[in-house]
């Protein structure tokens, strides 16, 4: 089990606060999108907003970008109240989920757009655009039309366009959602590389817990307009605060022992002889590539997922015993 001090190395003690939300609530008519959330993100941090769809993570990102005003609470950027500052005056740029590239401009003009707005002369504009295209490995694509690009290339153009102003905070709204698995993994590495190279704060919205865990310094887990837990990835995984975090982030089993809830990770459970552990019946066994997942129904009706390395010899209906070490049970808050 991880120790409590598993804090990200990038967080220096004297680091500055890039973004802070103070009791921010958001309602659309009678629908409450955000209850009253507070958190702060340090400069240079890779901070993820993780949660299922409709949990409020994109709403939060839009409030930081300035597309919406919160119904209550305040948004601070670099220590200053930015709650009522329009997006075009915020030193924050966004990579949109569907890229939002301008279809009437070629790749170069898209990337150079923020400089056009700032009336930078054309040669300077295009020189910088080429630099950014090189940074995202799209040299020579300047003259292409947006419609000629693949999803991955559009993603890189959107990134180059959002980075050309050297923003201090980059907001990313499920940027890899539309890409296939292999490309997504490539881009994860790429994004992390860029973030460390440029030293920019990344606020990253995703519903993919694997993505959030592998890239982030810290993750805020959202559920129904609330933040369930904010912690570094390992802490989230090994020390979930609530049942929701345990199940959503790590796919953990939740057991009720003596009226209290405990999280139990699938890979920490051993399958033993029926006489040597808690008795259960195998309901399903499936090959998942890196191992086998076995679902076991206990006597009290609880379904337990077990992750086993190596070949599974079980078939549905088999009687098995389950066992785990005492420290594998992690207590959850009610």
């Amino acid at each position, binding site marked *: 089990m991880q120790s409590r001090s598993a804090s990200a190395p990038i967080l220096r003690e004297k680091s500055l606060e890039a973004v802070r939300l103070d009791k921010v609530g958001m309602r659309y008519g009678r629908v409450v999108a955000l209850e009253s959330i507070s958190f702060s993100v340090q400069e240079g941090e890779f901070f993820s907003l993780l949660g299922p769809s409709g949990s409020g993570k994109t709403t939060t990102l839009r409030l930081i*970008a*300035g*597309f919406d005003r919160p119904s209550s609470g305040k948004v601070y950027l670099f220590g200053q109240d930015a709650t009522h500052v329009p997006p*075009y005056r915020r030193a924050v740029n966004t990579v*949109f989920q*569907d890229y939002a590239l*301008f*279809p009437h401009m070629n790749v170069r003009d898209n990337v150079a757009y923020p400089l056009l*707005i700032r009336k930078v002369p054309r040669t300077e504009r295009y020189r910088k655009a080429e630099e950014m295209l090189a940074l995202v490995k799209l040299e020579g694509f300047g003259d292409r039309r947006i419609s000629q690009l693949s999803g991955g290339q559009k993603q890189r153009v959107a990134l180059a366009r959002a980075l050309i*102003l050297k923003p201090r905070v980059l907001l990313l709204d499920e940027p890899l959602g539309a890409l296939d698995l292999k490309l997504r993994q490539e881009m994860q590495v790429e994004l992390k590389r860029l973030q460390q190279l440029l030293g920019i704060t990344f606020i990253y919205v995703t519903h993919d817990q694997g993505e959030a865990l592998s890239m982030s310094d810290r993750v805020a887990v959202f559920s129904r307009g609330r933040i369930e837990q904010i912690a570094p990835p390992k802490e989230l995984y090994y020390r979930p605060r609530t049942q929701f975090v345990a199940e959503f982030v790590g796919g953990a089993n939740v057991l009720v022992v003596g009226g209290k809830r405990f999280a139990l990770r699938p890979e920490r459970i051993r399958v033993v002889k029926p006489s040597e552990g808690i008795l259960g019946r195998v309901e399903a066994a499936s090959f998942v590539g890196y191992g086998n997942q076995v679902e076991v129904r206990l006597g009290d009706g609880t379904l337990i997922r077990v992750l086993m390395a190596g070949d599974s010899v079980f078939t549905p209906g088999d009687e098995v015993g389950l066992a785990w070490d005492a420290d594998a049970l992690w207590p959850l808050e009610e």
Partner: protein
Amino acid sequence: MLGLLADRLYMHPRLLLFVLLVPPFLWIGVLYLGSLFLFLSHAFFRIDDFTGQIQYRPTLQTLGAVLTTPANLDIVLRTLAMAVLTTLACMVLALPVAVYVSFHTQGLQRLIWLLLIVLPLWSSYLIRVYSGKLILAQEGILAWVAGRLGLEGVLASLLSTPLLGGPSLSSSYFGLLLVFTYIWLPYMILPVQNALDRVPKNLLQAASDLGATPWLAFRTVVLPLAVPGLAAGSIFTFSLTLGDYIIPTLLGPPGYFVGQMVYIQQGTAGDLPLAAAFSLVPVALVAVYLRLARKLGAFENL
């Protein structure tokens, strides 16, 4: 039997296409193109001054008369200027409406807006022109309201502008422009709104996120993406104004428009060749306009 027919058509898509396309082809080919060709070809003949009969010997004399006689050239230029002004006015008025409907309405609200935009088309064109005339007349509502608001001075100075002005709004080019713009406005709003509907709404957010103020976002994103719609709409407003003969007959100063000449020449005057030559003018001008629009890149983002 019917099933057998369906099977046959399904297996032979070309046959199906042929069956479906024959009626419209006959319609367009015979009635539309045929009559148009027959009529326009008359522009290359002339009328015998003594007998009043059409001489079926090809000549460019009739066309030449349209373009060289000062009185006729005047008519062409007057019509062209009105068509250009009407198109510009329609563009200016249509853009905000189209942007609003496209970006800020949905569901029932949008339906109501679209209904309001096309509502004028439900009533007779003649009725609409007459109501325009009533509003603009010397003793009309507009003059009355201007009087009540103490704005007679504004109206008077408007009417005293050279060229556009006149004794009253309904007998001035300015009034003519107002009515033309009113009558053709829906034909501009709808294509522009249609073009903007295809613009992803987050492009505006992206622009503002990247530093564009609302005005700059409009100029650099909305306007360029509205251009195909503006081009399509302007083809309507431009060609409809070029060809119209009722509005300048009922309103505005005495000077003739191309449409009126076509009407008079083929009707009262019985000079079919000259009427045909006049009706070639809008065709030629629209062709030139389309070329120009294409050169300016109006159709690149279609």
